[in-house]
């Protein structure tokens, strides 16, 4: 017998599923990114208790264009994770996924019922990210 477990690649791809499946894997990746950043963030912002000198020097190191870009990526991650997480919290308490009832072919599922809301949230993510991008890159200091 072969075990045939899909393994970690099964998180990302297990067949041709709809967008919520990819929302799920993105939620994982962004979550991991954010928690790693959080630990770094605690270390870096901890410099503020040593006074202005220490703060300015650490800020100078952090203000590297590549790091700045990573910060922007992280900003996208947080916005996505927050709004998709909002959808998940609602779903986990049974809001917006419909009620069980008599199924008639063609079947509708909780995933379909939530699709509109999902697209709305993704649109919101796009708008907030665009506003953020303006703040990150376009506007002068």
């Amino acid at each position, binding site marked *: 017998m072969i075990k045939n477990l899909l393994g970690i690649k099964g998180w990302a791809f297990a067949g041709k599923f709809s967008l919520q499946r990819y929302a799920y894997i993105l939620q994982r990746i962004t979550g991991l990114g954010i928690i790693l950043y959080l630990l770094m963030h605690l270390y870096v912002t901890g410099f503020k208790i040593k006074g*202005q000198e220490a703060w300015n020097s650490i800020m100078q190191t952090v203000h590297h264009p590549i790091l700045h870009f990573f910060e922007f990526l992280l900003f996208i991650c*947080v916005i996505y994770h927050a709004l998709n*997480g909002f959808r998940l919290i609602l779903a986990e308490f049974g809001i917006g996924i419909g009620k069980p009832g008599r199924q008639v072919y063609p079947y509708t599922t909780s995933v379909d019922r939530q699709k509109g809301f999902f697209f709305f949230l993704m649109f919101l993510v796009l708008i907030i990210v665009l*506003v953020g991008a*303006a*703040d990150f890159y376009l506007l002068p200091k």
Partner: protein
Amino acid sequence: MKESKLWSLHIFSGAILLILLGIHMVIMHFDKILNLGDSLAWKSVLSRMQSTSHTVIYLLLLLFAVYHGLYGVRSLIFELNLSKKGRSVVSFIVVVVGLVALIYGGYAIIAGHMAKLS
């Protein structure tokens, strides 16, 4: 503790973070659009450090973010076909990392608030 309680706390902290992290994000990243002044300049960092409301927000943010994040990491690792012993090792490591982060972060926030900096 029962998994349902830990998970409920995870969801609750997520809901709280939605608000607190929202405030944090607006202050830090929409500062130019809302004309709040450079949020990373020492002057504004100092003013936030000395304001009580910000200190409270930061403490809550730290507590909930560390819990929410580390519970998420734990549940992710739990899904990797670990043995029962492996799972308790992971839980232990997660608790230690969480405590270190909370103590270090809490110290930085409170010491920053107390310190007479200028």
